[in-house]
């Protein structure tokens, strides 16, 4: 089973997490046209992405830098610690 080495909550099994909300930076966009571009015409190629991940037991949100081609997680940060630009 996959485990994530999290700097905040330690090594936790993947089923405790849910990848939800997709890539960072497009959740609360203000401009309608930009939101449409991001939601429906965004780049869907497999590559390293920064994604919203939720840890269910602790109810903490993280940003994972993950390669969606290999499922390798490069880094994990607490969502409140990433730059404000990404937190939209």
């Amino acid at each position, binding site marked *: 089973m996959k485990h994530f080495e999290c700097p905040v909550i330690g090594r936790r099994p993947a089923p405790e997490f849910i990848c939800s909300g997709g890539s960072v930076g*497009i*959740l609360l966009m203000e401009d309608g046209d930009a939101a449409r571009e991001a939601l429906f015409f965004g780049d869907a190629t497999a590559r390293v992405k920064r994604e919203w991940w939720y840890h269910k037991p602790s*109810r903490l949100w993280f940003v994972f830098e993950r390669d969606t081609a290999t499922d390798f997680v490069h880094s994990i940060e607490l969502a409140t610690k990433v730059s404000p630009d990404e937190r939209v």
Partner: protein
Amino acid sequence: MSAFRLPPQDGEWIDRAQEVAFSFEGSAYRGFAGDTISSALLAAGTRVLGRSFKYHRPRGVLSFANHDVNVLLETATRINIRGDVEPLVAGEHYKAVNTFGGLARDKARFIEKLAAFLPTGFYYKAFYRPAASFPFWERLIRSLSGLGRINTDFPTTRGTTRRLVCDALVIGTGPSGLAAAQALAAAGKRVVVVDEHARAGGSLNLAQTSPVPTAWRDRTLAELRAAAGVTLITGAYAAGYYADGTVPVIEAERMSIVCARAVIIATGAIEQPAVFHYNDLPGVMMASAARRLVACFGVAPCRDAVVLAGNAEAYEAALALKSAGINIVAIADLADPASRGDSAARAEAAGIRILPRTQVAAAHAVNGELGGVTLNAAGAAGDAPGQQINCDGLLMSVGWAPAAQLLAQAGTKFEFDETLGQLRPTKLPSGVFAAGRVNGRFSLVARQADGAAAAAEALAFLDGSEASLARPAPEAAPQSHPLPLVEHPRRKNFVDFDEDLQIEDLRTSIREGFDGVELMKRYTTNGMGPSQGKHSNVNAARFLASHLGQAVGVVGHTTPRPFYHPVPMGVLGGPRWRMHCETPLTAAHDALGATWTEVGVWRRPKYYRSEGAGAAILEEHKAVRERVGFIDVSTLGKIEVFGPDAAALLDLVYTSRLSKAPVGVTRVVMALDQRGIIVDDGIAARLGPNHYYVTAGTGHVVATVREMNQLAALAELDVNVIDLTRHWAAVNVAGPRARELLQELTEIDLSAAAFPFPEVREGRVLGVAARVMRVGFVGESAFEIHLPYSQVAPLWEALKARAPAFGGRPFGVETQRLLRLEKGHPIVGLDTDGVMNPFETPLAGLVKMDKPRFMGRAACELLSAGVQRQLVGFTTDHADPAQPIEECHLVIDGARIAGRVTSVAFSPSLQKTIGLAVLEGESMTASQFDIRIQGGRLIRARRAELPFYDPTGARLTEQPA
């Protein structure tokens, strides 16, 4: 003692004290406890154990290791019984599959005579025209070929599922697997060890010439059994490698999902057949099969054996069988015996006749079994002159294919080792280790050392340290003959025994342009039978390579996908758990005669008493509208939101402006997703400046809490979100006399003046701290009481006891839905679908576009401008219970589908049928439309303003209309 049962062998698996009676093809047999079906039949001298898939040729034991399905059996209650490995069951009646009139006189065996007219792909080539004839031929051919008949009356078998979490999983218990497991156990790791045979030991369980390996096997197994952290599972196969060390291990009726940090794959190698004329006759088998029969089951595979040698191990087999009392007529070595190390000298010393550079050109049948072989010079054509030798056994030891399926699934890179004649892993994924024959190590010492080194690497991986052992060098002597195929003009040289494929079929495929391994596999179906190419892929690739003049490594190999063996559906399905949640009032509802329904994960009372749905719902409806009713709404999602930024958070989550709601007031709220789609609705009650209590949809509360936390993190808000769904219960009391029923139970002043709609109060109910909200969804004066789970039962009992005095009664969720529909409130997820936005519904007014930021706002900007459908109310006088309008009936506009009904019911209040429907495109504004009911009749409906009932809301707010 039967004809072929040997005297007791050291460490044999059978219990000769315990006889097991069974029948095969109608004849009675006796075997021993521990026998497989095939071993018991071979012991009795029965060697024709099945008929082939296509030509109905007689077949017998080939690999005796589940690498072929020559012996595929069925009983009255099961199919897919693999006779070579399934233990004998006392009293069972076994039959071979795919015969017409029994194994011995299969009426379909004539098909073989037509083989010349049945080249690969013939059925697509021959019967495609006229098109109408194809089904006829297809039915005929399908009835003649097959692997058993499914009987739908078979008893249902459901396996169980468990999860095994461990540090390391070791697959295979040959010398390398055992050495690895031993080292891991010694290091105190939690280890799961799996082997597909009934007993552990792998190739150590083959007949040997020395007792040393078996003594080591027994000692190591005893150590593993004594070790606390070791789980040894035999008779179970690792079905596939899934991401991150997840490996399902399949036993007869159980699946263990092993979650390992490190996986050591010591799956060994699969012995490969030689291909020559009539190489499928019963009596022609792998040398390893013969050695396993002797050592584990005390069964002689034959009386007089010829051994076909492509490696040194052939000599080990000959010597071991000779010492077990089997006459070795000759060893035909495909190369120079001097190249086999000292093996040939030992065989010669033992008096075995060795024929250098000799091949088996053809086998000969006597009564459908092997009676002799023709030998000629290695490399010659199949019909080149040679000598004929009588024998009833031909033991093939010409080469191996690494059992690298799991390694490949894990993402291992391989290279073809030309010396060794097999693929060897060159780059393994992190946490995956290979050892033993699958890793190109063949001698006993090298395999043990390779296993120990793999364990050292796994330990280093687990502990973040350096591996302490070096790997032994890969085997330098060839172990597989480069091309053990002899073509014979009379064909019948089988490559794939499952599918009855011959060299000729491969040649056809190449000739017609399907000349890659993957193309040839699909064109010929080579490797697509139940064995998944375990005995045929390598020979097919070798043939293709030789034909194209390429190296086998260049031709490549097919992708081995899970599962390694076919897994029974019942084991995959596992037990059918249906888990549900109950509120604390389940017993109380049962006492009232509740009829239950499933709402998401919850069970809820649909209505009470059993005089029939219609009558019960009518009575409950009448009670709420005219007097009072009460309903358990504990299943509501309930969320506590508090902290300095509580209002700011809810302004982000919901479309309305909750920061402007006064303390003590409730608001209907709606949540959207990024795309502006309605995902949830509920009530938000403001309990204090920084304190809200929010209800959410029963099924959506987990997601709502998650999204609240996300938006709080995103906006760096100082707020706490607590899910109280399973901590607080709720009861809604609704109707004109609700206040009278409830007032005596609480200290809260419920009068209209002190507690108007839509406000909220905190106070004691039956002495318990509670929250009471005036909510309006059923359209009457209503109070929703929220209080801790443990306290709801006394409240329910008190309401029940007092209700008769007010003409009140409990009501169920079906009645509630009717009441709600009369008020025109759409239910999110029932009346809305997965792409419905607020502007398409009567909820558009809840979207406050003047608010600068909320979830879905950007999408709303676009969506509000281009509404393309509308959720509307309708009424009709049609109220025929025999021909009802139902949910999902279509709205028809001329010849066009113009929408669908989402909710519909006969309204007792309005005395007509009411409903909600989605109208699309041009029909969006139609004032009348037709609904097509079951049977095609069109019912005229009129669009109606919402709500249907009490449009001014006077009953709800208790203000004069």
